[in-house]
């Protein structure tokens, strides 16, 4: 990241499930103004949407920071939730610990983390039980 980095910060509210996904809509608008290609915007907004939903379902909300420079878009999602005990297992498609009440809305299919990895060029997860989770995703421009 160079000096010319644009930083955007979003608080993801964990109390209101109906508002989940708002930050990714905001990011999409900003990237469009910057003239980022629609395909990249699509990938960023899907990855970010999945991450946001995860924070709301599992961690009671969190923070999202998006850093944009000429070469890449970096999304950092930070929460103080229960943490992920087994990251390898969590990365498997179809593996889910989401409660039933959100499944009725179509969430909890176990595709959140796999999609985040699929739609970004690089993803790092830092997490431990009781310590919360930080996910850093990078999409190259």
């Amino acid at each position: 990241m160079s000096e010319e980095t644009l930083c955007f910060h979003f608080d993801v509210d964990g109390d209101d499930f109906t508002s989940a996904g708002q930050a990714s809509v905001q990011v999409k608008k900003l990237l469009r103004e910057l003239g980022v290609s629609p395909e990249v915007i699509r990938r960023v907004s899907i990855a970010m949407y999945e991450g946001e939903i995860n924070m709301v379902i599992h961690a009671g909300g969190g923070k999202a920071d998006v850093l944009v420079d000429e070469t890449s878009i970096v999304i950092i999602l930070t929460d103080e939730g229960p943490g992920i005990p087994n990251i390898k297992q969590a990365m498997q498609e179809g593996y889910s610990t989401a409660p039933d009440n959100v499944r009725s809305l179509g969430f909890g299919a176990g595709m959140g983390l796999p999609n985040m990895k699929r739609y970004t060029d690089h993803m790092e997860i830092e997490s431990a039980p009781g310590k919360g989770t930080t996910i850093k995703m990078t999409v190259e421009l």
Partner: protein
Amino acid sequence: MNRYEHSVCLDVSKCNGCTTCLKHCPTEAIRIRDKHAVINADRCIDCGQCIRVCPNQAKKANYKKLEAMDRFRWKIALPAPSLYGQFENLGDVDYVLQGLLDIGFDDVFEVSAAAELVSAYTRRYIRREGVKRPIISSACPAVVRLIALRFPSLYDNIMPILPPMEVAAMLARERARKAHPELRDEDIGVCFISPCPAKVSYVAQGFGSYKSQVDCVVAMKDVYFALINVMSSDKIPTPVSHSGMIGISWATSGGESSAVFNDSYLAADGIRNVIDVLDEIETGKLPHLEFIELNACEGGCVGGVLAVENPYIARTRLQSLRRYLPVSQNFLEEDEENRVPDELVFDDKPVCRPITRLADSMVESMRRMSEINRLSGELPGLDCGSCGAPTCRAFAEDLVRGEAAPDDCVVRLCEQLKAECAELRRRRIGPVRKEKEE
């Protein structure tokens, strides 16, 4: 670049700069400058939203008067299907068509009949492989322009088949030439009876290199008042109507898409809803869909600002009008290759400069956005519109572009003045005090 000729315009003498239209414009095309509204032609999509909300009737649509048809020897009326929904107790479409002949037209060609052909070609087009999906209807000119300006990545999804009005105009001209070979092309005048100002702009503008076959676009409300004077239920009209349920359904939202005979479609109406749907399609969040019908006006074309009747009442009337009609009265032969005739296809779309980007280069866009973010943080965030921009963020954008001055923000100016007054009082050199000393 060519200037886009708009129908939506402003009567400066009636505008008091009240900011109502500012708040309702879906593309943020309006600013208040020198105490009246100014429309940015590069951003306006002619949706008519400002005409609908203006409390002073200062926003209006430019269109032709019926007298403009006088110069033609052979006058053809193209009634939009929404016209039939304007009349109370209308038992049959033929009363309206007869009325059009009685007010001076020589021939009538129903746009609803052409719409049935467009529906048939749409069904062919959907069966083709290799077509970009979802296919977006090209019928609403405000939506087409919106996509060009705000959703350029979906531009190729627009179905390249001409809208029913244009197909009707072509067929009507053809019919006139056949029946009256003595007429020259310039003797034949085609007049579209429109519920919406965007059609006026479309006809003035053409579409890419395609030039419209319509000569005049008149307002439905003008024709309505001419018609009610001559229409009478005592006089049995000549039965000329040649459209079915499908054609008449085009007047309301969902009508066009129900005629694709395919379950995976979506129909949305109202410009805000249209924008939301396009947003979802662009992000790829919608499930697989074949066809998307989008209408800028709530309720579909019956909701156009040049219509007379409430759109929901018009819709109900159309339901009973089409009740005992055949499904369609305009057919195509079975065609295995799913052909659409070349003359009904537009292969080049107008070149538009998208309005979503802040600048041409990413570097410059980033610099501007950084500046906009900094300025936005200093603004009150009330979105009051007093500065003449719809939101504080839009004002920050105007500042960065050099189109506004910092003092235009009255909230901030007021705070500064208060602080200066307090400072003057503190120094006891305020004008009030001075007077007393004298």
